[in-house]
């Protein structure tokens, strides 16, 4: 997901906080948006694939037909 979607989410969340009478929540939502950008700045799936022994068998994604054609980062998945 690219940054503009985080901005979109943040605007929506802040509007909801206002609607619920919780304007004090908006700075925390902005901080959460920053943290989400930081979280997404790392490709954790790629990092995990670089450490095969770390994969728990129950969560290791299976190779699916057509995976070789999957879109790159920043594109819809």
């Amino acid at each position: 997901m690219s940054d503009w979607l985080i901005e979109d989410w943040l605007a929506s969340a802040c509007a909801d906080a206002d609607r619920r009478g919780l304007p004090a929540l908006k700075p925390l939502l902005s901080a959460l948006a920053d943290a989400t950008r930081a979280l997404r700045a790392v490709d954790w799936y790629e990092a995990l694939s670089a450490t095969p022994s770390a994969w728990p068998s129950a969560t290791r994604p299976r190779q699916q037909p057509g995976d070789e054609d999957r879109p790159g980062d920043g594109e819809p998945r």
Partner: protein
Amino acid sequence: MTAPLHFHTITELAPLVAAGRLASEDLTRACLAEIAAHDDALRAFITVLGDDALVQARALDAETAAGRCRGPLHGIPISLKDLIDQRGVPTTAASRVREGHVAAGDATVTARLREAGAVFVGKTNLHEFAFGTTSDDTAYGAVHNPHDPERSPGGSSGGSAVAVVTGMSIASIGTDTGGSIRIPSAACGTVGLKPTWDELPCDGIVPLSRSLDHVGPLARSVADAWLLYLIMRGDATAARWPLPMRRAARGLRLGIPRAYFHDILDDEVRGRFAESLTWLRQAGAEMVDVTIPHAAGTAPVYLHASLPEASAYHAATIAACPERYTPNVRLRIEMGRYLLAEDHARAQVAREVLRADVDRALAGCDALALPTLPIPAPPIGAGTVDVAGTPESVRNMMLRLTQLFNLTGHPAISIPAGSTEGGLPCGFQLVGRRHDTEGLLATAAACEPHVTA
């Protein structure tokens, strides 16, 4: 022994109680007297079990007189963080949300401690629902640090650390979801152990984030923490006494992660940590630099892992009675409701990466060594503190060096390591291999005499 008896360790007191030379009732009365004298100012306790504690103590003294000793915890006064159920006693979680609650039974760890002969003197104050690191957002009044009452004792198990330091109880049981045992231990100068995740049962304990929650001891020595850990684990070896504690510091190999962990440190904290390493090196320990490549991602991963779990637990009460929460805790719970499931899932993958990072850093080492807190205890109510000329968020600073090991589940312990010129304690943190908490305790016992000034 020169200090009053109720300031000594379980290790020192147990033989006296077992031999009938020290009555549990006298020890319990001494702890209750400390509470009566100082707790109005420090606010370490939410519930004090004065008469009930004395009844427990007399019953245990009667057992001793009859020739029965349950083990090293027999007749020792301890306290429980007020998230942990004790039958017949309120579990408030330091919140008005829980008004009227009385625990129907003991948490499993409470039952094991009771069976081992503990005397419960009371339930300690905390950051409301353990959702914070400073113990000032609580329905029962901010907890004060006994080393400087204008400062926080850390949290969330702030009352537990204060109780241990001030002689209000010989040890205490806390919980740790991002550092909540180790942080107050460092800020107040106690030993605090977070075992490997899922090693000690958390049933009967109000959860914060279940996949990150741990229960563990705050104590006056590594030996005491080890004993309490074994008892709470339900291990028959807890009856062994004395514990096979000491290995020499000589030959220990400690991994020192510097990148990220030393990037933001108060100058005095940095100095005390460097001194500890020097003393350990002089004692024959070896230090090797190690790296945890993704450590810089810890805080956002922690936020996205922990918040949804906390918000899910509180969903019904935050909808029904939001005004009963303290304002800051309410806002943090509300924040978690906006977090996207996709990012929570991403954080779970990140935890696997971080776990592998820490496992690799530990390869060939007995433990990792790092400061517990990057700053001394902050002023009560402060939002930011100055660290080497830069304002930093208190919350971020308090969690910065501890929360990684909640994400990964590795056991970690904080031991006292000197203090600042102003008399505020500093903590020395050791991190061990998963599922080898006793190995970590053995390493900590070896380090303890060399880092504790």
